[in-house]
């Protein structure tokens, strides 16, 4: 062991440790700390053990029922927007031009919604949907459709979903387009030679070649929609009633509305855990899908 010991390396690593400690570890530990205690303000804390967690996971309590209601609502929302955005994104990607100036034009137009700040998106749709001054709300009401996202649950949901589709389908489309562009021409030529129909080209070539980007798209869209806060909060404020109150909106209500730090902390940790688990599942699926492609046995 004649390796020189160089302690200077610590000076290089230390800043990272400090930044991570202050930006992630300490805030998280504070939340953990809150989740096991109760406070009545004035910085007085009382030990509560796993009390908040028990309450949170028991649907018969007020906290539990609110958590589960918003959780199912949120999962339903994610399922709906995935069911719309993924097929729609694929269709948009397939109908995009493959070369020429139109590609650039399409890319710019598709990227526009992605570049708008989230609360601006919310504000746009909030005004757009108003029955008195909004173009959409005014027109719908004038052609005889009774549309009011403030008072009608269905209208509120429809508005939030359409807004999300408008905002994020581009992302799925762009990812799919990148996947499609990476398919060598020889595949299409071979399919022509083999007499494949348009549908067979899609199922035998395009979809399999896109499946990795699609997994990424589904992961991104699921995580984003599961954590959605800004847009529905700006448009509906979680209403009417609690009908569009998603988990993050519920969390903010408990933490900042009621100032129940213990309950909010317990909810945050469980919320966080769900997201980490989902990420882990996706990651495992994706790496396995990648391993599938490596040739391991030859037929010589």
């Amino acid at each position, binding site marked *: 062991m004649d390796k020189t010991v160089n302690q200077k390396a610590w000076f290089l690593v230390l800043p990272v440790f400090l930044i991570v400690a202050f930006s992630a570890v300490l805030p998280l530990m504070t939340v953990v700390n809150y989740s096991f205690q109760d406070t009545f303000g004035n910085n007085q804390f009382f030990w509560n053990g796993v009390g908040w967690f028990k309450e949170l996971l028991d649907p018969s309590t007020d906290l539990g029922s609110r958590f589960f209601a918003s959780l199912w609502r949120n999962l339903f929302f994610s399922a709906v927007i995935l069911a719309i955005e993924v097929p729609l994104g694929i269709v948009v990607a397939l109908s995009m031009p493959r070369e020429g100036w139109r590609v650039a034009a399409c890319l710019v137009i598709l990227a526009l919604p992605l570049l708008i700040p989230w609360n601006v998106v919310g504000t746009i749709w909030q005004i757009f949907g108003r029955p008195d001054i909004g173009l959409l709300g005014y027109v719908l009401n004038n052609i005889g459709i009774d549309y009011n996202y403030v008072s009608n649950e269905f209208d509120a949901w429809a508005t939030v979903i359409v807004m999300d589709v408008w905002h994020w389908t581009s992302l799925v489309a762009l990812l799919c387009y990148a996947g499609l562009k990476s398919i060598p021409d020889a595949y299409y030529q071979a399919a022509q030679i083999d007499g494949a129909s348009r549908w067979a080209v899609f199922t035998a070539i395009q979809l399999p070649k896109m499946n990795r980007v699609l997994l990424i798209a589904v992961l991104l869209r699921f995580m984003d929609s599961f954590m959605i806060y800004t847009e529905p909060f700006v448009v509906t404020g979680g209403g009417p009633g609690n009908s569009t109150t998603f988990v993050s909106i519920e969390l903010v209500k408990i933490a900042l509305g009621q100032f129940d730090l213990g309950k909010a902390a317990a909810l945050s940790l469980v919320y966080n855990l769900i997201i980490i688990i989902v990420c882990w599942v996706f990651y495992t699926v994706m790496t396995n899908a990648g391993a599938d492609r490596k040739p391991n046995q030859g*037929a010589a």
Partner: protein
Amino acid sequence: MARIDLVDLAHSYAGNDADPESFALKPISMTWRQGGAYALLGPSGCGKTTLLNLISGIVTPSRGKILFDGVDVTSFSTRKRNISQVFQFPVIYDTMTVGQNLAFPLKNRGVAGPEIAARVAEIAELLDLTPYLDRKATRLTADAKQKISLGRGLVRSDVAAVLFDEPLTVIDPELKWELRSKLKALHRALDLTMIYVTHDQTEALTFADTVVVMHDGRVVQSGTPEELFDKPAHTFVGYFIGSPGMNIVPAEVRGREARIGGHVIALSRGYDKLPAGAAIEVGVRPEFVSVAPPAPGLLAANIERIDDLGRVRFARVRVGDAKLAARVPPGFSIPDSSAGLVFDAARVHVYADSRLVEGVL
């Protein structure tokens, strides 16, 4: 199964108005007979893949017509032309098994189930793919994938022609020989018109009955391997085919004599009417020139090195500014590097502006 006629066929990727010299394929007219085994041979970028894609319909020609058995198919889609083509790099359908991959072209054309199964079994047997039929095609090596591509190209028995676009590029050298002889055997067994694009002369000469040599968008010669070897129609053919390539040396030719750097070589044919102003060269394959000890009647040469190719040895010699290759007879030895060259008069050809001039016997 069809005879393929190309009538004034030409193609430019820049459109029909492009400069004729820039065409990827300059106008050609030729016939590919039914059941022939053809090789399209030429260096990269000579237009051979363009010609192949024109025949299969992947590319629509700027000019001219393509006839299958006399029917004009120029405007037909690839599907309608009923052609099969194998590409340079393996194309396999990821989600399918090897068997499903092979069945795909038949299934798309609505062939009956039992017939598909029989065809797939037959082709799999020919290509040694039978043990892998139920495997996912994605999990195989590049070799095996290319075999699947070949199999898909051959699985239809009713095609007008099977086109191969350098199909053995990704295959190991050892397997190349095996697959090439297999293709040759398949050609005999199936009576299909096959066109094989390659830049490898060995591949072309062993596979084909007729080799079509292309250079710079033009077909410079089409003939049997023997014809290409014995009587190259263009200096490019002489140089491109054969290893080492033909010796091409500028010369003055008059009657039955060629003068190289002041030395006269006898020719077995007479060349009285050579085009005026053309660049005249003589070409002779290294196999028909041999080195000998220097003697007054021989063209003096300087040996630079001797390459031993196993069964034969070739000397690289210099005559003035020109470099030539010549056969070294067994047991040949000289004290220094100066030698004389002995020409086989009957094998010396004369070229005017790179094109063969027929002599008079």
